């Protein structure tokens, strides 16, 4: 079980004195801004990206208030500082682990896959008791359609599908700890048995709904990893993973900018073509640089500047753009620094993974 307050304090400690208090919020929600995408690479926080996409800003601020009231952190003008007390608390939670979370990889598919599994369980459960009619556990028409398609494929032998599917489900749950398997099984809805809601799970485990959410996402990520690594053993569970569009995982808008750059348009041309602000186009380019390995930033920063910025980054502890810029020639722009940082992180990442 992951406790949300521990996860949050851990995240805040990574961004300590470097970013604003809202940065962790954006990371949890999986904000697709160039800044946030860059931050997660810079501070090695890919695994927690987008793991709480419907986190309510009010709830987030209540947590921050609680940390402040507990004297674990202080908020400064444009950043915040974790106190010694804050670090002590964090160190005391030595049992705390977030292994298994892989937000950057799974944030686009985790919840939809989970809903698909639940709908398939509900459908096959009802069918195996001879009941064709029930109210589906998800309103998502897309998911309903895909599950229907799958069942149609086995029109002739639904029993075979049920057998194959239950066997896959059993195996993937078996690969988890008993506690985790129970956590998932309590949520399953089927014939004449309706699954528990998040609030009910929180009551049962005597945890907060936030804890339940994060724990659930963590288990889903583990399940996804298990089934992806052995596609032959889990064909059905793999087949209901939502299809991702091949855009290097970037936003629609950034992808369109990328397409135009590849066609040879200059940034000012794209700006007027797309009727967007310079800063927006710059955000796109940074996002592209972060996502696309072969994207060459040479058109926007000369090699000399790249080297200079690289040196400062290597030397400096701070990852704040302002701190970095102060150590450089005045002519170097924030845009250029961000581009170099993007590439710099790509290299570091490919080494560390």
């Amino acid at each position, binding site marked *: 079980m992951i406790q949300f307050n521990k996860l949050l304090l851990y995240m805040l400690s990574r961004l300590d004195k470097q970013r604003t208090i809202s940065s962790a919020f954006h990371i949890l929600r999986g904000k697709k801004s160039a800044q946030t995408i860059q931050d997660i690479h810079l501070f090695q926080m890919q695994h927690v990206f987008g793991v709480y996409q419907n986190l309510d800003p009010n709830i987030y601020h209540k947590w921050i208030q609680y940390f402040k009231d507990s004297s674990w952190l202080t908020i400064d003008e444009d950043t915040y500082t974790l106190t010694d007390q804050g670090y002590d608390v964090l160190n005391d939670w030595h049992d705390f682990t977030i292994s298994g979370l892989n937000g950057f990889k799974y944030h686009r598919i985790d919840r939809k896959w989970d809903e698909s599994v639940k709908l398939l369980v509900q459908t096959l459960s009802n069918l195996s008791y001879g009941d064709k009619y029930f109210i589906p556990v998800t309103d998502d028409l897309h998911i309903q359609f895909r599950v229907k398609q799958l069942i149609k494929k086995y029109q002739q032998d639904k029993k075979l599908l*049920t057998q194959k599917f239950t066997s896959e*489900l059993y195996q993937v749950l078996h690969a988890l700890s008993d506690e985790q398997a129970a956590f998932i099984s309590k949520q399953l809805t089927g014939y004449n048995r309706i699954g528990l809601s*998040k609030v009910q799970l929180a009551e049962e485990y005597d945890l907060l709904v936030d804890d339940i959410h994060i724990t659930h996402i963590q288990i889903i990520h583990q399940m996804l990893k298990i089934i992806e690594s052995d596609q032959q053993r889990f064909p059905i569970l793999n087949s209901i993973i939502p299809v991702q569009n091949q855009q290097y995982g970037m936003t629609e808008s950034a992808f369109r900018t990328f397409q135009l750059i590849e066609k040879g348009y200059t940034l000012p041309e794209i700006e007027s073509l797309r009727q967007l602000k310079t800063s927006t186009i710059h955000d796109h380019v940074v996002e592209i640089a972060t996502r696309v390995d072969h994207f060459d930033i040479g058109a926007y920063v000369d090699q000399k500047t790249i080297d200079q910025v690289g040196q400062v980054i290597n030397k400096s502890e701070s990852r704040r753009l302002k701190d970095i810029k102060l150590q450089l020639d005045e002519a170097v722009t924030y845009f250029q620094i961000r581009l170099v940082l993007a590439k710099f992180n790509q290299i570091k990442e490919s080494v560390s993974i």
Partner: protein
Amino acid sequence: MNETVFELEKQLQEKFGFPAFREGQKEIIESVMNGNHTLATLPTGSGKSICYQLPSILLDGVTVVVSPLISLMIDQVKILKSQGFKRVAALNSLLDKEQKNKTLSKLEHYDLIYCSPEMLQQPVVINRLKQIKISLFVIDEAHCISQWGHEFRTDYLRLKDVIKSLEEPTVLALSATATPKIQQDIIHDLSISLNKIIYPMDRTNITYQVQYSENHSEKQEQLVNIINQVHAPTMVYFSSRLLTEEVSSLLKKKFPNRQIAFYHGGMEQQDRLLIQQQFMHGQLDIICCTSAFGMGVNKDDVRLVIHYHLPSNLESFIQESGRAGRDGNHSVSVLLYTHGDENIPFQMIDSELPNDIEIKQYIDHGKLEDEEYSEIKLRFLDYQLNHASETEFNLIDTIKQVRDQRKKVKIKSLMDLLGWIKSDSCRREGLFKLYQPNVRAADYDCCDYCGFEFYNIDLNQKSYVVNRTNWEGVLNDLFNGVSF
């Protein structure tokens, strides 16, 4: 004639699995099947929707149902689909453009289309409807057409023109809360002649009770005492989300062996669905909820409905307490009242309609500052502005007058409820005398005034406890023992 009656009953069994019609249903269905415009009233919870759902399947062409609440519409479609009816759709503002176009393009393939009144104002929708055969045009919650109704909807006034432009298909106007005066309004505003089928509104299987308390802790005590005596499917209505949660957790502590949950509009969609389903499947004993719960909840065996707070008017009270005992068996409605409880609904009335500043703001700028209830306010203002004559000198004053009149209706309805609570006479008589000349005798106990006491009833009916202890066992149960 006998043959068609037999046919209808056979169809009811075949399509819906009901062995027989409930009171009134058959007469209404026959009336519309014979092509008569019909105004029908049936008590709440008596299966009004069958009156158009069955004809929609039997008649050639499409049945259009105008329904004022989008959430109700969506629930109905969901339930129908879950029963195997595929040719049903909803047209409302929640659809995105693609979904809407898709639905519109295959309109004639449906038997039944739920439609919000504002959708019927869109030329694309009307033009499309003109191209298909509409066999039945249903106005659900028809009392919304009346200025004297508690739920007056300006866009219902435009239905008259819609019916005309569709070349007057058979019309069925349905309501569960239409006084004779409102019935007259419906006939007048639709300006077609309607065959009136009026059934009494009173629910003879429900016992009514009002309990007074001095303060909130006493009220809580009363609630606990009642729950202690009745272990059966129970709904407790609150006017605040926070209190559904607080009282739910209090009850859990007091009754660790009961299955208790809360439900309100602020919950995540998935959680809402699960809680609703648990209640429908008899896996909860008690649900603490706001009025967001219960629309389209088809649970026949709710035995006890408790109002912890006041609803906003008498009609809402009749409707919500009417969720009890749809199966016709003995059920109880309790309203818990503490002096001052009326403050919340009075405030609601005040904040639902635009104030003077907002009226001016809207007329000057065509919009309102973003805030609560703005949708209801905008709907009101929009209609008023569109229907003001061009020569209107004093638009603002006119709108203010209309608003004040709406306010008066709402305040009166709330005062009626308060008067009923404080009255010293038969509860049943007081609730229904506005609707019908003779209130029928109760099947079981009548009300607190007529001598009902809680301790001598037996409504017990416990929830089904789902075993979730070991995950392998859960899988085994889920898939009927299929081996893995």
